[in-house]
């Protein structure tokens, strides 16, 4: 093994220009592999953070109760099922600390939600009202990062509205509005923050108030309408949701229940990534195989001499496989270094700049790229190595 390694190394250093070109070719393939990994990984992270990143991974929400019968006996007259007043989860508050203590749970947001109207002067707009617990305003949707004026902190008497709504109602920070719920309760609030998520519907139709204000507004002295839970790993939602259901007796729903299409899109994107990276790998394998095949052809007389001197076929195979492995290792390391250097200018940690490529340097798959290149180069060298081992020494020496 050691001696075969020495010969393999000597063959590589004997023709430095050719080896350099070959290693560079492999390195470019690895560079593409790493760049694609970082780009596809970053893109997936961007999509996730822009979509699933701002929603609850698991949510507990009571279904509205069945409509009441207005006439007994044959139910010919019923009350219409409410679409504006959310049902109450009377015991949910008690379970919040328990849910928070579960492994994999990053944040829990107890909420009281409903519909209402916001009035400023003579202008009125219908809004969806979200009552959030102060201190947990950014537990699910990162409101802090979307606030363009004021603060995301909510207190008694404060309201956070979207930029579109502020424009529609000619509202500025610090101005007062009146907010009335579908329960017919009205309260005066001060705009303490204006946010801009970028989704027109949200920016125009959703207002955030403190949980206490929401209790008053919706006449809910106790209980919650909804509990939103964020996980460390969003893909763990399907496993954690049933745990929460078992623990609390409340129906916990994973985001994937309503996100099948999104999951399919993510899966398709991941498959595309694998395909592109496979092409890069195939290029490397073909490059190494063809270069080594050329090398074995060029070195046929030497192989004949080695065989005549008592080198076994296995030894010859080992020499050329090690040559392939060295090329793969050098190309892999060089390509990984080139890839890392090229990705350095991009911000780390998924902090993507608007308008720039969504590249995540952490997702370069450097180790995988090197390992696959090494493996690919070894596999690519087996065929030329076996061909070399089969060289007839008499014929080869006679060349």
């Amino acid at each position: 093994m050691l001696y075969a390694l020495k010969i393999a190394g000597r063959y590589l250093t004997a023709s430095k220009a050719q080896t350099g070109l070959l290693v560079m070719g492999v390195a470019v393939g690895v560079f593409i592999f790493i760049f694609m990994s970082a780009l596809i990984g970053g893109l997936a992270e961007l999509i996730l953070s822009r979509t699933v990143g701002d929603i609850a991974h698991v949510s507990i929400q009571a279904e509205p109760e069945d409509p009441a019968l207005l006439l007994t006996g044959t139910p010919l007259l019923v009350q219409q099922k409410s679409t504006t007043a959310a049902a109450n989860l009377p015991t949910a508050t008690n379970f919040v600390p328990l849910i928070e203590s579960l492994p994999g749970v990053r944040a829990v947001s107890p909420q009281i939600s409903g519909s209402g109207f916001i009035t400023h002067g003579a202008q009125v707009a219908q809004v969806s009202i979200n009552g959030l617990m102060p201190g947990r305003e950014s537990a699910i949707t990162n409101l802090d990062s979307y606030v363009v004026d004021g603060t995301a902190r909510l207190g008694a008497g404060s309201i956070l509205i979207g930029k579109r709504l502020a424009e529609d109602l000619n509202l500025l920070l610090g101005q007062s509005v009146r907010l009335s719920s579908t329960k017919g309760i009205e309260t005066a609030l001060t705009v303490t923050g204006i946010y801009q998520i970028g989704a027109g519907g949200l920016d125009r139709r959703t207002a955030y108030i403190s949980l206490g204000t929401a209790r008053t507004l919706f006449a809910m002295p106790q209980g919650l309408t909804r509990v939103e839970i964020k996980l460390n790993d969003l893909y763990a939602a399907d496993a954690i949701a049933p745990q929460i259901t078992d623990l609390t007796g409340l129906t916990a729903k994973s985001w994937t229940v309503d996100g099948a299409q999104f999951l399919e899109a993510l899966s398709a994107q991941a498959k595309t990534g694998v395909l592109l990276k496979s092409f890069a790998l195939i290029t490397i394998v073909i490059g190494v195989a063809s270069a080594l095949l050329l090398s074995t052809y060029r070195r046929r007389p030497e192989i004949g001499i080695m065989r005549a001197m008592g080198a076994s076929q296995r030894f010859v195979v080992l020499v050329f496989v090690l040559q392939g492995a060295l090329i793969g290792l050098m190309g892999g390391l060089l390509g990984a270094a080139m890839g890392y250097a090229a990705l350095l200018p991009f911000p780390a940690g998924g902090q993507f700049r608007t308008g720039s490529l969504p590249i995540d340097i952490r997702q370069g798959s450097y180790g995988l790229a090197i390992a696959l290149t090494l493996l690919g180069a070894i596999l690519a060298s087996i065929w030329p190595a076996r061909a070399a081992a089969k060289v007839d020494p008499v014929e080869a020496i006679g060349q």
Partner: protein
Amino acid sequence: MSALVVVQDLVKTFGAGLTETPVLRGLNLTLQAGELSALLGPSGSGKSTLLTILGTLMQPTSGAHQMLGQDLVRATDSARTAFRNQHIGFVFQFHNLLPDFTALENVIFPAAVRAGRETGVARARGMDLLTRMGLQDRIHFPTAHLSGGQKQRVAVARALMNRPELVLADEPTGNLDRASASQVMQLIAQINKDEGTTFLISTHDEKIAALCARQLVVVDGQVEG
């Protein structure tokens, strides 16, 4: 002296059908241990084919070939390779050294490939052999920097590296000037005398043949002498 190599009814035919060409036709030969023999014969007589078969690089079409009591016709390729490495040395007309290696690295190749590494013992033996060949100042020279005569002496040293019982030399001086040829032959004769190594030297040169104790002539695919 005891019989080192025994060949009986050796037949080698190349091609088949209309292109079938018999080269060796029932050849018989015995080489005694320690012999210095010359193998003569016109071009195409089968000298090189005989050396190749004796060196286990080629299998005969039929016949028996034994060396050191081992049946080399029935041996597997890997067994023949190991046998060749341990017991047979080669010197070719065109030195056939590994071009990317130094003189010493070429010499110790047969030992290193056997051990799987370059041992200190092998290096010492290689340096000793090169010194005996008069190449003590060329030990670490790349072979590309050596003259034709020097390369052939390196090839002789390489053939002797594993202390083989038999060295087969195919026109070892055929590509050298008179002085270099004489120097190589003197070295071969000296080693034959000092170490008792058996040499079979294929040559067209009557003067070279005259230096050998035994002359064998290949005629019509058979050996005379």
